[in-house]
């Protein structure tokens, strides 16, 4: 019984680990994530704005409403990053393998480190107040 139920999951995992398409998707998703997220944050481009006091959603960036508490953009940045990177990763699976192999794998860990600088800079009001 356990063998029967365990086989499909194991096969699925195994197929993902050996899949060239998943490799492409994962690499492009990972390279794009810090870029898409940082640009969204710097340019104030959330997918939506959430007003936590009233549970109101608005598409894109919206200011806090008078008497309704603060507006939150982080959920919109996260959703934008996840959707954007999924689209880019999926599109990349249709690209010729030789193009994908030209992407330096080091970008996967160098870009998150480089993203520190603009993200810290964008938070300058927090560092200079008080």
């Amino acid at each position: 019984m356990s063998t029967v139920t365990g086989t499909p999951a194991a096969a699925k995992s195994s197929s993902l680990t050996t899949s060239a398409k998943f490799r492409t998707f994962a690499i492009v998703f990972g390279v794009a994530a810090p870029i898409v997220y940082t640009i969204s944050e710097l340019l104030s481009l959330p997918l939506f704005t959430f007003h936590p006091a009233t549970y109101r959603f608005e598409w894109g960036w919206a200011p806090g409403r008078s008497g309704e508490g603060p507006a939150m953009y982080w959920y919109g940045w996260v959703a934008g990053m996840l959707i954007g990177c999924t689209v880019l990763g999926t599109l990349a699976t249709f690209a010729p393998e030789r193009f994908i192999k030209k992407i330096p794998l080091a970008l996967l860990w160098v870009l998150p480190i480089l993203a520190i600088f603009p993200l810290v800079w964008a938070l300058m009001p927090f560092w200079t107040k008080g």
Partner: protein
Amino acid sequence: MFEIISVNTFWTILLIIHGLLSVALLGALTHQAMAVLMPVRQAAGNFVDRFRAVPAAGYATAVCVLWVLTFIMGAWIYIKFRIYIRIPIEQAGFWKTQGFFELKEHFVTIGMGLLPAYWYFWKNARDPQYESVRKWLTVVLCVIIWFGFLVGHVINNVRGYGS
């Protein structure tokens, strides 16, 4: 539900779950990072040797699941945080503390974007062409989770959900 427990207790329980998940994630990633930075060449001896002598590849799926679960719990309690914790923190003038919290949310989100590649490279741990990227991805994720954990801890000290 709030007839059984108070609102503050409810959010505090969620925060504790978020914290416990992050501790598990912290442990798994620290084991892995130690294993890739200082691989054991011989049978484990002292505590440090044993700490880094773990079968690191076996942690990959657990790390991804724990990261996503911790992230979801953090995103949930963030709703309450934004109104009942961040505003008093700003009113008290703890701007740098809040700034570090903003950085934490940025880094853990970017870290989540790295998970598919991280998982793939660990599932192909015997492929030498991925050795370097696997090592540094693991170290970056480990640094992110330590940063997030410490900042979250300090924020909770400044003003917790039960305040």
